[in-house]
């Protein structure tokens, strides 16, 4: 048990001021990542700023058609929100594939983006881990690395970003609104998470004290079909071994626009531009999906126990694309 101070805030300014630029302070939303890691002695904040009272609990459609999600909207609310179900089914599917009902009831949108890796050595304070303790080494590199990443890895860290929700956001495209001691700014969702490189402890672009206030989804692709496929050891309450989120629009049997993002296999929510290129203007057929899958995984680097993730991810991609195409065709059919 480490003692820490606990503060609440009623609005964004107050939260940001209370937090300051101190890196010993942490915002707490649902607490499902943070409190877990505090108990494991992995995160050691001296002060928490509770943001649950902030007026960031709404989901609204903006005039330009984009969807603006408040940071503290829960995963459950978001997954079942009528606008999300109707216009962003990929996001709803991905959210519902994550964690369990109980966790989703607590987990928030910003908290989900900020969740930490599930690498067991990261979560064991007595193991060597560059992400937790820069320069200490990486016990996963030659250890039990079955759950680890094959894309975006470095020789410092091979941990996956475990989120499902973020895979949908990576495919849909989104903008984060941040507010911190130095004011307000925006950043594209796909620029937010960082690759481990030689600084795995720097997981994202948030500056000290910055708060995520909103996540604004790009306008949906017209007529696109959507499918999120999560492959995992058991059917629920389990992180992905490989997941694929696909958005595809088709015209006359040819893929007009495609978005593909991958989970469970990469060190950050992984948008595969290589796959998207391979799909563009190609017939909506299995052979195309297979080429896209090849392209997506061509730079994958396996370690001792996770080589199977490469073919598994390819399978996830092919199936997700097939189902997304079916969905697109159904959507196009006059009802």
């Amino acid at each position: 048990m480490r003692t820490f101070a606990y503060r609440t805030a009623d609005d964004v300014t107050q939260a940001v001021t209370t937090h300051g630029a101190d890196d010993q302070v942490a915002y707490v939303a649902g607490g499902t990542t943070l409190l877990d890691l505090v108990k494991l002695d992995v995160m050691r904040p001296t002060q928490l700023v509770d943001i649950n009272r902030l007026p960031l609990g709404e989901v609204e459609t903006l005039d330009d058609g984009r969807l603006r999600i408040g940071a503290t909207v829960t995963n459950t609310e978001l997954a079942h929100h009528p606008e999300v179900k109707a216009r962003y089914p990929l996001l709803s599917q991905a959210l519902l594939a994550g964690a369990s009902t109980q966790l989703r009831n607590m987990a928030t949108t910003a908290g989900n983006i900020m969740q930490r890796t599930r690498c067991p050595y990261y979560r064991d304070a007595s193991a060597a881990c560059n992400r937790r303790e820069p320069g200490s080494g990486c016990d996963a590199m030659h250890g039990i690395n079955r759950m680890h990443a094959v894309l975006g890895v470095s020789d410092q860290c091979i941990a996956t970003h475990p989120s499902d929700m973020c895979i949908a956001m990576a495919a849909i495209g989104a903008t984060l609104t941040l507010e911190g001691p130095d004011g307000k700014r925006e950043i594209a969702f796909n620029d937010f998470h960082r690759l481990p490189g030689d600084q795995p402890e720097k997981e994202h672009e948030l500056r000290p004290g910055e708060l995520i206030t909103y996540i604004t989804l790009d306008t949906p692709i017209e007529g696109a079909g959507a499918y999120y496929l999560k492959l995992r050891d058991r059917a629920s309450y389990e992180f992905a071994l490989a997941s694929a989120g696909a958005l595809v629009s088709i015209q006359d049997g040819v893929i007009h626009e495609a978005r593909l993002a991958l989970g469970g296999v990469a060190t950050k929510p992984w948008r595969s531009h290589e796959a998207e290129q391979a799909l563009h203007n190609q017939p909506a057929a299995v052979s195309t999906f297979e080429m896209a899958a090849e392209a997506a995984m061509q730079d994958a680097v396996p370690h001792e126990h996770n080589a199977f993730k490469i073919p598994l991810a390819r399978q996830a991609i092919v199936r997700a694309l097939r189902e997304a195409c079916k969905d697109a065709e159904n959507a196009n059919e006059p009802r």
Partner: protein
Amino acid sequence: MDTQVIGHRTPRVDGENKLTGRADYTTDWYVDNMLHGYPVPASISHGTLEALDIEPVLAMPGVVAVYHHGNFPKLYRSPSSQAHQDQVSEVRLPFEDERIHYDGQYVAMVVAERYEQARAAAHALQARYHQDSGARPGLLETREDGRPLESEGGLRGDPDSAYERAPVKIDHVYAIAPESHMQMEMHATLAQWRDDRLIVHESTQGVVYQHKAMARIFDMPEEKVEVISHYIGSGFGNKLFMWPHAVATAAAARELGRPVKTVLSRQQDMASGGNRPASRQRLRLAADEQGRLLSMRHDSTTETSFVHPYVDSVGTPTLNLYACDNAAISHHLLEVNHGTPCPMRAPGEVSGIYALECAMDELAIALDMDPLELRRRNYSYEDPTKGLPWSSKHLDTCYDSAARRFGWERRDPRVGSMREGDEILGWGMATSSWTAGRQPCMARVELRADGTVMAACGTQDIGTGTYTVVAQTVAELTGVPLDRVEVRLGESSLPAGPLSGGSMATATTLPAVAAAVRAAIDELKEVATDEDAPFTGADPDGLAFRDGALADEQGKRVAFDDLLSGQKLGSVSGDGQAAPGDEQNQYSFRSFGAHFVEVRWDPGISRLCVSRVVSSIDIGRAVNPVTARNQVEGAIVMGIGMGLFEKLDYDPRDARLINNNYSDYIVTSHADMPEIDVELLDNPDYAFNEFGARGVGEIGLTGIAPAIANAIYHATGKRIRDLPITIEKLMEP
């Protein structure tokens, strides 16, 4: 036997207590002046504790003491004898010396005023270790085979030459990863010393065993130790015998003169509170062209820790499941730097039956024969090891009934031939079996003037329904309704009862309770025929007890409560005991069943699920069909975990446990549940006991994992011999 209560669906009599929070689990106990213990686990698996930085921790809020090898009181090891019922899970006492034999072994225990304070101090305690090189990783990470155990061997006929001569044979090695019990309720102890008496609340499957072991360890008369366990959040075997946390807690309470409660964390429970040991098993089977077994050989190795030689007897089913004149088993034991293993639901046999039933499937394929037909052709009509007839064996009915309900005759034996859209169906089956045991047992029953009946026995209900079946027995024999029957279990001061283990509790306890009921009724008849009593002068033997009343042949009837009140008596009581007898020399007792499993394999995305399980199990009479079915259904779910998910992951480099929590150690989730169709045959086994009941707690688990593995082969053509069957194994070319 025509029954009114026994054999009828009866809701748990303790259900309301559990649902309303009145059930007092060990952790629920708070007593005055109580302190909290929190063990400090080693973070290396092989080496020496060099230093503990105690001073700063003693200065932390609420900390009262820190015990370790330097200041722990001198105690005695328990002889750990099954015959004397003082068996323990780990013979090494806590903090005996500085040696560390496994990750999670306790190097100290902090005692503090509050739980959070004890935990904080335990986390803060700095330990310095000398880590020895060469920690021995798990059995499955090495090629070593350990030492042979002659006592575990068995031989009949001449299996080796029969194997040589046979026309059809198979020879394969099967492996099972170590598993965790993952019981809901953690190990927990509350120890209090009152004068020179030790009172322990423990979540245990054996109050009597723990009471005796405590007496040995603290070198005190047995009658001065009491162990209490009213409610247990299950155990699956890891609460059969006492673990070191209980000893450390009782010692701390004595030293400090205050009650101490210790509740293990999930991490500690998984690292140092027992596991099913890994096994490696080589099976050689040979048959003639008609599929008659000519030779069976089962050579196995299991692992244990360096501090306790636990042996999981995996070979036994091979000696008695099928008729075969030539059979041999052998066993090796390998010490590894893991926490000590212990029995886990259907210990030994569930692992052995996994290997045997996969091997039978492989033999059937080699013979080009239906796997069910192969089992029928080797049906054993008597116990091949003892040469005694089975008391009551209806495995053939199980095969017929389960196969029919499953639709087995529609099975196309060609691999991958049964397609449905993206999916391929795989159908597999296996035999299920568990020995039927019984122990000596005592019980007491009181008929009370307030119209209630109390039955007491020093066994315990680990969640399986023992309270309910004892109440049913009393209600059956007295005619008193269930809501007027009080059952007391879970105290070592009650008449000595059995462990809740080995599926023996029901068959052991009920006959003793019945004897006690009869003794109490006899006592009542004595009272009733005394002077100035309702039946003065009558022959006690001429009176009958029915529907809560004594009656004579003339039709005079007096309810027992009226009778007692009239005689100004609060109660009469009877002591009963029962033990296995001569029937053990006439019959062999075992339960049998069959599982049929359907898996769905989607090769396009390497996704496998168990979609259907159809089982028929013969357990003799199901005393309570509700709780009995619950046991089998739960076992099926557990078996899916064993087959597909469960594995304690130890890092092979340093033998440290990596997945010590419910998130990373994967058990079956609701979404993985198949459609389950369980039939319990109702063939009372009166040779075994007067109620015809064998046990039901374990048998359901045996045979599930091999039926899954066999179904997977049928769907995929991949014969995976190592459990669990995870996705990557199915993806290998």
